[in-house]
C-alpha cells in the first residue's frame, strides 16, 4: 500500500531556507524585504565569494 506519511525529511527539511546569490548583506536584505509574512527573516551567509 503506497501512502503519504509524516516524514520529516520531505516535510520539514525540503522547501527549507532560500539560498540567494548576492554581492553583500545589503543586497540580501533588499531581497528579504520583498518576502511576505509577518515572521522574521533570518539572513545567514552560506558561501563567501
Amino acid at each position, binding site marked *: 500500500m503506497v501512502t503519504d506519511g509524516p516524514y520529516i525529511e*520531505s516535510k520539514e527539511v525540503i522547501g527549507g531556507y532560500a539560498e540567494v546569490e548576492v554581492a553583500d548583506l545589503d543586497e540580501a536584505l533588499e531581497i528579504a524585504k520583498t*518576502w511576505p509574512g509577518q*515572521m522574521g527573516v533570518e539572513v545567514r551567509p552560506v558561501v563567501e565569494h
Partner: protein
Amino acid sequence: MVRLIGNFDVAEEVVQDSLLAALETWPVHGIPEKPGAWLMTAARRRAIDVLRRDKRYAEKVALLERSTVASDPPEADDRLRLIFTCCHPALAPESQVALTLRAVAGFTTQEIAAAFLVAEPTMAQRIVRAKRKIVEANIPYRVPQGPELIPRVDAVLAVLYLMFNEGYLSHSPAAAMRRDMAENALWLTGLLATLLPDQAEVLGLLALMKLHAARARARFDAAGEMVLLPDQDRSLWNRAGIAEGIDVLHAAAALGVTGPYQLQAAIAAVHAEASSWEETDWAQIVVLYDALLRLTDTPVVRLNRAVALSRFASPQVALGEVNDLAISLGGYHLFHATRAELLDEMGQKALAREARLRALELCQNPAERSLLERKLRAS
C-alpha cells in the same frame, strides 16, 4: 451512527443533518451541556425519520426508539471499535483504510486521495465500490472478537497513521496542521497499545506519533508560517515527550519483531535526539531508511531516503535517485519540491524554478504554499 444503523449512507446523511441542526440551534439557544450527546440524540431522531421511509428497516426503527431514552455520550473507545469494524477483511486493504477514513475519521474524498497519492475521481470510485460491496455482501457492523481482531490490526494502524499524518501536515487548503486530528489519532493509538501491549508495531506507531507531537510547537511560528527543521527552536521541543516516545520505541524493540512504524519512529528519534541541525546523524538516518526500504519499498520512502542522502552524500547523487521516481510520484508536490531543492543546491536555478512551480500547482496546504511562494520570489 454506522454501528447503530448498519448503513453508511444513512449514517452520513443523518450526522450531516444533525450538525446542520446544531449550527442553526446552538447560536440561538446556546451550546448544550453535552454537545456530543445532543448530536447523537439529534442524529438518532433524524435516523428514525429517514429509516421510516424504508420498510426494510422497520426492525431497526424499534431498536433506535428504545435507545433514544438512554442518550449518554458514546463510550470513549467507540471510535476505536468502529475503526476495527470498518476495517473489514472482505474489502481490499486499501479500500478498508479509505472507507474507514471516510466513515470514522470524517476525511473528505480529496484528503483520502491525497493520502494515497491518487487522483480524486479514482478514490471516489473506490469508495463507492467499497460501500456497495459492504451493502451487497450484507457485512455486519459488529466488533470483531479474539482471533478475528489481530488480522485487522494492520489496517487499523494504517487508518490511525493517516489520521495522524493529516493532522501533522494537512492536505486540505483549510489548515496547515490539524491538531485535533493528530491528538485523536495519538489518543486512539495509546488506547490500542493498552489493549494490545504485545504488538510491536502498535507500540512503534505510538512512539512515532509521540516523537512528532513532542516537536509540534516548534514547527509553526506565531503567524502560522512553517519553520523548517534547520530553523526550529529546539528549546521548544518537549524533552519529556521525546523521552516518552523513545521509551515506547524501546519497549517495541524489546518484543523482537521489527516493522515499518518502528523504523519510522527510530528515524524521528534520531532527529529528536540531535542537539542541533548540524549535529544530525544523517548516516544513521540513511541506514534506517535502507532497512525501511527492505520492508516497504515504496516511492514515498525512496523520496525521503533521497533527502537524507543529499545531506550524507551529495545533491547530485540524491537527484539521480529522485529522478527515477518521476513516473510514480509525478502528482506528488513533495517530489517536485525535493527536485527543486536539489537543483537549487546544484546551481540549476531555471530547472529548480520550473520544479517549484509544478509543486505549487499540486500543493493545497496553505503553509506549504506560502513557503513555495517565498522561495519562488527569491529565485
